[in-house]
């Protein structure tokens, strides 16, 4: 798979804000193909894990109601510039991707 994650992390004072954009179709399994009338099978991200210097700070469990090409943002304390943030996702078809970035 091509690169699917765009991630940025910025430290301000004690708080580090992580923002990520993932490229993913997020099919709900309820949409129909207009030509064939068949349902498009569900294909969505189930779990996103975000680690700071190897320790998990946030785990998101997602259903198909998260928008296509999901955006995610959260904050945590204790990060500083130069730290490594790693984000990975797994979808319901077993596909996955991960990316890491340095905190600015």
């Amino acid at each position, binding site marked *: *798979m*091509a690169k699917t994650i765009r991630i940025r992390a910025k430290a301000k004072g004690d*708080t580090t804000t992580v923002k990520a954009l993932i490229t993913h179709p*997020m099919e*709900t399994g*309820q*949409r*129909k193909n207009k030509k064939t009338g068949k349902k498009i*099978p569900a294909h969505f991200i*189930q*779990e996103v894990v975000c680690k*700071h210097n190897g*320790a*998990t*700070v*946030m*785990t*998101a*469990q*997602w*259903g*198909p*109601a*998260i*928008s*296509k090409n*999901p*955006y*995610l*943002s*959260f*904050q*945590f*304390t*204790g990060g500083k510039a130069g730290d490594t943030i790693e984000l990975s996702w*797994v979808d*319901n*078809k*077993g*596909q996955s991707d991960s990316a890491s970035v340095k905190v600015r």
Partner: protein
Amino acid sequence: MLRRTFLKGSLATGTVAVAVSAGLLSPRLVLAAWPKAAFEAKSVQAGLSSLLGSDTTTPSTDINIKAPDIAENGAVVPVTVSTGLSGVESIAVFVEKNTSPLAGNFLLGERAKGYVSTRLKMRKTSNVIAVVKSGGKLLSARKEVKVTIGGCGG
């Protein structure tokens, strides 16, 4: 080198996808921790009790949901949940009138702040409900979002 790994990667995912579509490999088995029943629940109450073990929540003014009053496109509704509460363990986001109301559950580690932001699909005008688990208690807040074009199905 990059192109090689790219090829390998796409081949590997390709075989997985084939195995899944052939029914050889149930995709649900890959992630054991994912709360399938909660995500498939048809009501907020059922989703809540399946996910968090209880369907009673206490309304709280310490939870702030930032979402548009009117969303023109139900496929992309930006929602931000923030709370000043300490010891937040998880934040669950429900869209009351979606086919499956539970949209996402964010498990927050010790150092994570009570703040998550994402974008949701909404089928029609509905309440967005945030349920924060903090110190063993379930606290909730809701906000109505009017949707002009639904975002599930089409």
